[in-house]
């Protein structure tokens, strides 16, 4: 089993040199801590910043400089600022190479639900619907099962959708999986000490297991 930090660390391995990446709130935010040395990655924050830097030092917070999670941040050399229309313009035009976000549910055809639970207070989708509808490459970072022990990898989402047929890859505490174009979760890697059987039990949607499935490595 992997911790949240380890999920983030595994996802970081998917990031290539020169990528522009949008990180959602939660586990995706942690990915920034594990970007491989020697590669150049630019983080996009959809409120209007390319080149998001780390949190400011104490006393250096700037109320005018925040990320999409409303956290105080910093810029980096090469940063640029733009308005919200341009920000989502570059997202829609697929200039952002990789989007990493959390989910409540993912279906075996790549649908995602992550913004609304009927009966609960709805806070809104923010930029999530724009991101999932536009991004050419989306990785979901989430727990394999919810707090009630139910699988979040489903034949069909039960919650209101955020986007359809858009998720390409999922990293959980148990496994790394691709969503197949024809439907189904293809098991790529399993977390150390996690059996294929356990992953199978934790996956309500169709799990495709072919060949040898290696344990994830984080070195």
């Amino acid at each position, binding site marked *: 089993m992997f911790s949240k930090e380890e999920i983030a660390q595994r996802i970081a391995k998917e990031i290539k040199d020169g990528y522009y990446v949008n990180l959602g709130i939660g586990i995706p935010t942690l990915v920034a801590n594990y970007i491989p040395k020697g590669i150049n990655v630019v983080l996009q924050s959809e409120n209007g910043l390319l080149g998001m830097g780390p949190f400011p030092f104490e006393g250096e917070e700037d109320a005018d400089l925040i990320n999409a999670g409303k956290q105080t941040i910093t810029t980096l050399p090469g940063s640029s600022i733009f308005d919200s229309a341009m920000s989502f313009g570059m997202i829609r035009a697929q200039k952002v190479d990789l989007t990493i976000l959390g989910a409540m549910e993912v279906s075996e055809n790549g649908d995602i639900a992550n913004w609304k639970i009927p009966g609960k207070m709805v806070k809104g989708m923010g930029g999530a619907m724009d991101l999932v509808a536009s991004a050419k490459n989306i990785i979901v970072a989430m727990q394999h099962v919810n707090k009630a022990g139910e699988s979040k990898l489903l034949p069909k989402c039960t919650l209101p959708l955020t*986007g359809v047929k858009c998720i390409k890859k999922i990293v959980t505490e148990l496994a790394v999986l691709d969503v197949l174009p024809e439907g189904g979760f293809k098991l790529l890697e399993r977390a150390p000490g996690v059996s294929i059987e356990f992953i199978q039990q934790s996956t309500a949607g169709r799990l495709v297991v072919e060949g040898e499935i290696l344990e994830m490595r984080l070195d």
Partner: protein
Amino acid sequence: MINKVVSGAEEAIRDIADGATLMLGGFGLCGIPENCINALVKKQVKQLTCISNNAGVDDFGIGLMLQQRQIKKMISSYVGENAEFERQLLSGELEVDLIPQGTLATRCLAAGYGMPAIFTPAGVGTEVAEGKEIRNFNGKDYLMEYAFDADFAIVKAWKGDTAGNLMFRSTSRNFNPVMAMAGKITIAEVEELVEAGELDPDHIHTPGIYVHRIFQGKDYEKRIEQRTVRKSAVG
């Protein structure tokens, strides 16, 4: 001679009447028009439709207008943590139209650029698409979304000049320039108002043609929603 400069927020919002549709710039509490919001609260104008990415917090920003029950309808992408908002929504006092953030921004852009509608893939296959025209281009589905039609746009800039030109600072830019373009009447409050000619024409984010009233705001609180820091030591 026509003068865009007004004395302050009260004069700027003088003709905003009950039932008006307002755009309010800002992302979270960053870059919100604090002075105008306070003046709207004081003026007690009611039944407003507010187009704003967020709805403030309980005791700051648009939250103050919610406390006074001045808002009939919010059009936002994320309404965040706001107990009074939740109460009014659940009780049916407040109408809420949640739309994707990029759709919100682009519907502003459309208004400012004279485009009656735009196409976006955001929301295709979701409840956001209900009742909307879907159109396929190059094998991909898009929703047709209409330009906003707002009576007033109220924005906050860093610097402005007497010709109405605006410059924004850092991520407090966010929705402000696109909303500034989109209002039938656009009101800008700025931290520093200078004479025409003092701003570099190349560095103006919003040309004065889009701004009808401008004033230098005061007592900016610029509250931080999520104060996140790292230690001064490395790491």
